[in-house]
């Protein structure tokens, strides 16, 4: 698989769109997951995913292979999704769990036990959700999360704690 991806990357760098389509097929689920979990909206996640792949295509000639293509793409995807998250006033200003999230708009590959968690994550307030997704699911440290979201490190930790509490509470009710 790694060899296949490396070949597709090399061909796509030369302008082979079919090879890039192969990369798209391999990574669209990963990219969309980041966007959907961060932005919490199907349309925004679709738009963001498209923007990310276009950006990847444009920046591909500069990809030197210092890291794996997947890691490189993941970095672009996360940064782009966060930029959109930060630009979205609605997300930043809404800090209430009263709003009903979109619960049935994605086909997840997660198990039946994970599906309630996936839905509960979408119920989280925007900032708590972003912190939870970046820290717990994407593996960033609180300092990195704080820098990316433009908040204090202490705020990141507090929001993560809050997110966990809410998730435990909601999942216990089910």
């Amino acid at each position: 698989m790694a060899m296949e991806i490396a070949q597709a990357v090399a061909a796509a760098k030369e302008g082979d769109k079919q090879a890039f389509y192969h990369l798209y097929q391999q990574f669209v689920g990963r990219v969309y997951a980041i966007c959907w979990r961060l932005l919490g909206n199907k349309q925004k996640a679709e738009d963001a995913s498209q923007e990310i792949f276009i950006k990847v295509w444009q920046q591909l000639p500069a990809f030197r292979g210092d890291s794996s293509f997947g890691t490189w793409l993941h970095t672009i995807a996360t940064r782009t999704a966060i930029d959109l998250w930060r630009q979205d006033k609605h997300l930043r200003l809404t800090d209430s769990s009263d709003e009903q999230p979109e619960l049935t708009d994605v086909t997840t590959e997660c198990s039946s036990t994970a599906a309630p968690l996936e839905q509960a994550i979408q119920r989280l307030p925007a900032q708590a959700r972003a912190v939870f997704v970046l820290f717990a699911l994407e593996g960033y440290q609180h300092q990195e999360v704080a820098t990316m979201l433009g908040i204090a490190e202490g705020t990141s930790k507090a929001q993560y704690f809050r997110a966990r509490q809410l998730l435990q509470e909601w999942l216990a009710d089910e």
Partner: protein
Amino acid sequence: MNEQQLDKAISALAPDVMPERDLWAGIEPQLANRLSKAKPVLWHWATAAMLGLACLVSWQLALLPGIQSSNQASMPTAELMLLQVYETQKANQLRQTVAIAEGFDNWQQQLQVWDQAIAQVRRALELYPDEPQLLAQLQSLYQQQLAYIQRATLQQPLAMS
């Protein structure tokens, strides 16, 4: 749900979430432009090469003693003819320009590069009037410049008389 159960549920989350629709249809049309952007890169190299040539000629001229400037009245006939023919053509092409083609945003800078190179060759011709190689170089530069204008601009058709 306790902490351990939550951690277990988190680790069971799939890394992939598939979108409901195929997003490729919205991506592919946006990819078409990448290859066409190769042209400006080539032009950067051409520009650099042209500037290099101009600098080289300039440097060589600076080493020669007794450079005298001259005006058009003292210009050799062959050079004057080239100048008149190509400058007229260039003026006509620019006058008929109605729009700039996509990817040629810096066309004026490119023309200036050729103008600088042409000026350097003409300075050399002041030292070696009617020197065949310099005249050929001057003609070549003008032809390149005219061809570039042709590609970079969209021109109104000539009126039929």
